[in-house]
């Protein structure tokens, strides 16, 4: 398992609403090395989520280039981006977005349904992912039988089950209490330190930001500030 490096050059993103142009990113240049844990911070409307979406191939830039590993995302069609995304990126959202009628294992299995894989191989990978996040014993539980932290762990398992190059997390602890947030952040740190995953995390929480090797501050679509800190060693293995 390993991560991919990310490179953005002169990236512009403009949204159009009722014929009004709304620039969100203005000539952004950014480099993220493979296996790095980077945090994005900034006020609302600064372009953090937009940047995440561009790197995750959920959207395409109005101008400029976005490279993740060997892939030039700005040259891809929507269909190509979707196919690329399924193999190379794992998403974690603030609200978890698990399917309520599926068990934890079935939720984690969802991305694997896009690949030609036997049912036994899928089961094996799901088990591995749930083991990593410490929820193997909750595999048959539905989301309404899990705590918020456990739901987010399932979402993380879903994000890593395809062994993506990069994990993109949009406010992963936004809906959690302090103790549970720490558990989730420790898990992300583990994925980065032990499995070499490139992690890009958007957050408003300075405490969460302290887990990143680098913190990038966005303001009005441009990088205004950058902080670097020492690599934080992962805590003991994640507990359920």
């Amino acid at each position, binding site marked *: 398992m390993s991560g991919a490096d990310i490179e953005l050059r002169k990236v512009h993103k403009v949204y159009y609403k009722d014929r009004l142009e709304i620039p969100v990113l203005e000539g952004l240049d950014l480099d993220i090395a493979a296996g790095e844990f980077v945090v994005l911070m900034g006020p609302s409307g600064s372009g953090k989520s937009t940047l995440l979406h561009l790197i995750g191939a959920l959207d395409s830039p109005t101008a400029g280039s976005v490279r993740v590993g060997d892939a030039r995302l700005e040259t891809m069609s929507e269909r190509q981006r979707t196919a690329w995304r399924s*193999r190379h990126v794992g998403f974690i959202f603030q609200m978890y977005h698990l399917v309520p*009628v599926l068990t934890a294992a079935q939720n984690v299995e969802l991305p694997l349904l896009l690949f030609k894989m036997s049912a036994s191989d899928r089961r094996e990978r799901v088990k591995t992912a749930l083991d990593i996040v410490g929820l193997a014993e909750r595999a048959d539980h539905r989301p309404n039988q899990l705590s918020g932290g456990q739901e987010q762990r399932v979402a993380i398992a879903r994000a890593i089950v395809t062994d993506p190059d990069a994990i993109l997390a949009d406010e992963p602890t936004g809906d959690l209490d302090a103790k549970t947030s720490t558990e989730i952040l420790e898990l992300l740190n583990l994925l980065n330190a032990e499995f070499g995953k490139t992690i890009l995390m958007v957050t408003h929480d300075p405490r969460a930001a302290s887990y990143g090797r680098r913190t990038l501050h966005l303001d009005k679509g441009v990088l205004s500030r950058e902080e670097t800190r020492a690599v934080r060693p992962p805590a003991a293995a994640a507990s359920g």
Partner: protein
Amino acid sequence: MQNLRRNPLRMGLTAVAFALPMAIFVAAISFVVTLGEVAAHFQRQLRLGVHHRTTLTNPLPEGVRRKIEELDPERSRLTAVCGMRWFGGRVPDTQNTITSLGADVDTFPTVYSDVEMTPEEIEAWNRERQGCVVGGNPATLYGWEVGDRLVLESTVPPYLKLEFRVLKVLDNKERANFFYFRRDYLVESSKDAGLNDPRCNVFWIKCKSQAALRSLQQEIDALFANSPDETRSEDENAFVANFLQAAGDIPGLMRAMAVVVVFVIALVAGNTMMMSFRERTPELAVFKAIGFQSGRVFLIVLAESVMLAMFGALIGIVPAATVLYLFPPRGLAVGPISGLEVSWIAVGGSFVISLLVGIVSGLWPAYQAMRLQTTRALRRTG
């Protein structure tokens, strides 16, 4: 499929809203199909009915039969003519009138060849003045079997009470409500009671072809035009239709009902699917974020709609068809319809219609899901 369990109450109510109309749909279409089968049967029998132009209750003279027969002395167009007189009998101390008719003894077995009387039964019919041929429904209702003696009292003058002996119980559904006996027995008994009236309400003519039926129809009415006994000749389907229309345009009503049923369940299913789609917008956005192509998301939503429709159809159609199959309603008297049996055409057609309704009602939500802007949908939900 598991998403159908997301809101069990809503899905359950939608399934019931689907099931009940589909059950009615099966019964309605079975009725229409049965009518079609009966009509086809009558058409094959090539019988032409001749009655008074004004009303069936005005009988025609007995001599009309001879005049009809004289139109075709070589018997190249007609096989036989059978005069019938309404008796309107009922079992004493009951209220239900049985469709009972006195028929010409010599030609009844020929004109009503679909009654399929055996040579022995014909011989008994010719020999026994009190012999009768009974339809399955009254036989079942009153427990009559071959050889039984029974009494019917007439509801028309001279209100005779006649005794009969059962020679045959009919098993064909087109004749299930009928009761035939010898008209000469009726005429003689009426004479004994003081009423000498050998007239007939209708003459049935067994024709040899459709062309023969049509030509005889015109010739007979032309023969009696401008006479006190003006006739109206019509084939058996047209004759029966008069009775059906007296009760309203039942086939048309059934068809209209079926169309309304399909329309209503399409609306219900479509509404449910739109509600489901709106609820699942963030989830569908995540599917796309994970890597599900738009076409696949379209199929997921469409499949859910189809499954809901088929599930509703299953819980409506299967019980309805099973009940109709195991306990077919007997004793109906809607024109020629004496009973209602499940039509497998109706059952198969109902499933096909349910499938189509599921597809049509799921198309718009599926299209919306396919076109969902992932980033916008994710942004909306935080």
